[in-house]
């Protein structure tokens, strides 16, 4: 026979898994440190690519000057400057990533609490049925 309470609970669980849970469940599959590290690794790659794109445009913008002063330009100083700018940019970007990832993980855990509570209730209906 159909157990209406059980169906209601399963509906709630399925609705969560299809909606909010779709974003939350993959996050909570990781340990906090693993999730944050992975996000920071992704940011390192993304930030480096973005910086390379901007640097490429910058080189194009000053292409004429660079070609004219190819042998007179103090390249070491420029490269040092570039590396410093890259380090500052990546520092800020990685800090932002850390804060955001930590916040997202915390919210995901919080959101999962209700899901686990419903799962527990569902488990109880099974134990009641067995008894």
């Amino acid at each position, binding site marked *: 026979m*159909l157990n209406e309470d*059980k*169906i209601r609970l*399963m*509906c709630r*669980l*399925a*609705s969560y898994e*299809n909606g909010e849970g779709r974003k939350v469940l993959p996050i909570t599959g990781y340990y906090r440190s693993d999730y944050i590290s992975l996000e920071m690794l*992704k940011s390192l790659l*993304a*930030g480096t*690519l*973005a910086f390379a*794109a*901007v640097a*490429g*445009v910058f080189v*194009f*913008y000053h*292409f*004429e000057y660079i070609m004219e002063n190819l042998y007179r330009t103090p390249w070491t100083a420029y490269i040092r400057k570039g590396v410093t700018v890259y380090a500052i940019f990546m520092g800020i*970007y990685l800090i932002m*990533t850390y804060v*955001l990832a930590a916040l997202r993980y915390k919210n995901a855990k919080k959101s999962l609490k209700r899901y686990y509570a419903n799962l527990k209730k569902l488990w109880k209906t099974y134990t009641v049925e067995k008894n």
Partner: protein
Amino acid sequence: MSQIIEAKFLIKGLYGKYEAYINPILKFIMSMFLLLVINGKIGYMERLDKLPIVLIAALFCSFIPLKLVACVYGLFILLHMYALAPECALVMAVVMFLMMVIYIRFVPNETLVILLTSIAYMLKIPYVMPLAVGLVGTPVSAISVSFGLCLGYLIQYISVNSSTILTVDDGQMVSRIIFMINGLVSNKPMIIMTVVFIITLIMVYVIRRLSVDYSWAIAIIAGGIVDTILLLMCEMILNPGFSVVGILLGNIVAIAIAFVVLFFDFHLDYKKTENLQFEDEEYYYYVKAVPKISVSSSNKKVKRINSSYPTEYVKGSSAGRSSGYTVKNDR
């Protein structure tokens, strides 16, 4: 007023019930409109600037998620730019890539705000974005609106200066890129409008969250007024070349559109029909969960029971549940 509220709940109810059909139709109409606007403004690639192509693309957009729809719009813009000059497409691609890698990666849902802002700019009503996004978004959306404005200004710049881009320095690649970067970096109107929009958006957001009556309506009107005053002041002091009539009319239209957004504030209590599938050890369940409509329309009978008026009459949905009334639902 009660009739308006009834209409609103009726529309919400219908939307919740037939969401599976209405969403693709809405996406189709929106995509069709936006792609036609893009083609109208920067239709440099003749193959794309044809109605059958737009129809096919819009049809495709109606069945894919909104994030991918935004990618289709972006692809259209890039292809048109490529047809004008590959350098244009390169600069545009770099700008889009930066937005995607640095920002959209964290907030993928904001992609549409960026594209809508750029399209609203092309339609000369960018003023609607800080008001509408301030109402339905968060302060983070200010970044999306800024990026959208930047994209809109770049498209406009390329569209206006297309002949110059083709002829600058005999069409040398580096010169074209420099010309476009100059247009993007030293664009005074863009910078001013971005700053004003950020201030307006945050102000609308803060006011609409205040716990006062009509905070949403106050937020819209105050946002519109502040936006107008700031832009007019900037025009007088810094002279970036804004059209005064454009600012005034644009903000009036923006306030009207923001009120429409307020009317359809779906994000507050919107529930949609859900089709769920699950199983236990005995059954497979295919459940269709339909949301209840919280206000039923004029078929409510209100009967006064403790006063000297024995008449029974029909009253609208706003009928109070105050003492002396019982509400009998005939549905």
